[in-house]
């Protein structure tokens, strides 16, 4: 079976800017695939290349086994949920949702029925006659989703669809999107700069930096086994240990990532258990973050962050402490840059 989307060494240049720079990628059918990266990293351009709004400067794109170069957006069997929804303001919600069906020439009664069903699926039954301007951001987002899904696309492209929503709504929509994708079983390609969003929803995550994909893996592997300093830093936060420091503390002589939540903070001189490493230092800063407390500890060679559950730890700034972490928590990376 051919993958839903295949990129072979795809480049998209805008003048001197290499927005997408040699991306090779397979997205499997039925997969929830997230493209994660900072703004300007090329993830949105990749999505636009799939939708057909951009054509590759170099390389080859296949969508469900068919060559995509030169195929205009209106001939592709994918639909997009735009970042700011792009609902047509001169049409009602119902007309917006039925738009793709109207274009295909589906008779009025049938397309109205299907639009109603699609709106019911996104929990907006009865909103057919409203104008997009009368809806809240979350409701518009659902209309955009219904408008895309009503066409029965084989892949749904989502361009930071939750970016404009507030936190509570965003978390709720994340769950709903995930459930919807499971129910429909179609491929979702989801662009976001929010690592929490990508990790919580996707089956696989591609991390973009500078027009290139730096790592593609399942969320847990992205987090637990970052392959480069960029991934370690961008996804969550991380202590990056130099090869010398890592070697001196029981690791390999390579650039190494150590997640702050793996590091425990103990009184100076505490015993170090089996298979654990330690470093002594002085607390330079403490920040209380609700569920956890974050310590910034200056050791001899390196400032290390530690996150511990905020259960009445009595350390103060300036205290001498011993940091202890399991050796297994040190993840060697391919590069430190």
């Amino acid at each position, binding site marked *: 079976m051919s993958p839903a989307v295949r990129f072979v060494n795809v480049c998209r240049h805008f003048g001197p800017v290499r927005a997408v720079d040699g991306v090779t990628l397979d997205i499997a059918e039925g997969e929830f695939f997230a493209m994660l990266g900072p703004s300007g990293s090329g993830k949105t351009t990749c999505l636009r290349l799939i939708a057909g709004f951009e054509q590759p400067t170099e390389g080859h794109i296949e969508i469900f086994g068919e060559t995509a170069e030169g195929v205009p957006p209106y001939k592709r069997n994918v639909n997009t949920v*735009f970042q700011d929804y792009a609902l047509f*303001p*001169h049409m009602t919600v119902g007309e917006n949702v039925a738009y793709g069906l109207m274009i295909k020439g589906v008779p009025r009664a049938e397309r109205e029925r299907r639009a109603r069903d699609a709106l019911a699926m996104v929990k907006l039954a009865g909103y057919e006659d409203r104008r997009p301007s009368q809806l809240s951001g979350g409701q518009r987002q659902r209309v955009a989703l219904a408008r895309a899904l009503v066409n029965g696309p084989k892949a749904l492209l989502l361009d930071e669809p939750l970016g404009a929503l507030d936190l509570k709504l965003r978390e709720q929509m994340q769950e709903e999107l995930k459930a919807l994708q499971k129910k429909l079983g179609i491929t979702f390609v989801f662009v976001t700069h929010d690592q929490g969003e990508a990790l919580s929803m996707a089956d696989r995550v591609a991390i973009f930096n500078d027009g290139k994909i730096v790592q593609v893996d399942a969320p847990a592997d992205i987090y637990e086994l970052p392959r480069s300093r960029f991934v370690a830093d961008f996804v969550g936060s991380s202590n990056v240990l130099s090869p010398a420091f890592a070697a001196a503390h029981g690791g390999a002589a390579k650039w190494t990532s150590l997640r702050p939540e793996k590091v425990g903070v103990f009184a100076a001189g505490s015993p170090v258990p089996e298979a654990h490493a330690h470093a002594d230092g002085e607390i330079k800063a403490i920040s209380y973050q609700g569920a956890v407390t974050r310590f910034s500890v200056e050791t001899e060679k390196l400032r290390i962050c530690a996150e511990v559950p905020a259960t009445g730890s009595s350390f103060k700034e300036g205290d001498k402490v011993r940091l202890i972490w399991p050796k297994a928590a040190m993840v060697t990376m391919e590069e430190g840059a």
Partner: protein
Amino acid sequence: MSQAVTANTRAVTTDRREGILDRISDVLIAHPKLLTLLLLLPPLLWIGVVYVGSLFALLLQSFYSLDDYSGLIVREFTLSTYAQLLETANLQIILRTVMMAALVTLACSIIAFPIAYYAARYASGWTKALFYLAVMMPLWSSYLVKIYAWKLILAKEGILTWLANGLHLSWLLNGILGLPLVGGPSLSFSYIGTFLVFVYVWIPYMILPIQAALERVPANYIEASADLGAKPRQTFWTVIFPLALPGIIAGSIFTFSLTLGDYIVPTIVGNSRLMIGQAVYTLQGTAGNVPLAAAFTVVPMAIMGVYLWVAKRMGAFDVL
């Protein structure tokens, strides 16, 4: 704690300024509605008295009549002046003017749309500056100069005739001039000439509103439409055109009403058949028939009123 608050309060209140202007601004800030009223009063008076007032006086005049024997205005309410509008000669003036205005509006919108579309969608930086310059610059020069220039271009001995001769296209020009009704002895003495000059002088008023309307259509509407399967032609008619329609209507209000009321263009470039503006000019001047002139000016207003009502009924302003 309370001590701190007191100190704080004193710090705010001792800074109080005492001048008369300061007091006025304190009062105005405390009463924003009063401020709005004061700011609006002068323009409201201007519009209310000078503008609407004179329009009302004009309307009033149209219900008076002219005594044919004494040449004096009879200041009694009558509809006989309006009845005069329906006489064949006057009705022809109205129909001729409305026809001309409609054709000019249609031509302006067809020519203006691609220009406005280019400017809104593709132009940026210096091409955009060039666009504004090209559209606005004709508006900076005198309207009379431009019309006389056109008269020279269109005249029998003018540039167009010369060009047609040089290109061996005289037969085409003569053929056009030989057309019944719209032709004439030369382009500058024909409806075609009047039409061309009207289109030229009013087209900026059509381009700018359309451009402004298109400017507000985000590019991703067009992408969304394509994404949902619409070919470019379908996208144009279902998304771009409806969203540009308020701009087209706004532009057509300008081109239509300006043509309806203009008397200079048809006087300089055109055959001697009168348009509404010329009729008003002659009636209130030499003929001294102000009531009929007033009744004539009510015609464009009535037409525009009906036009806007129809446009609204058709949903042209729903996007606004």
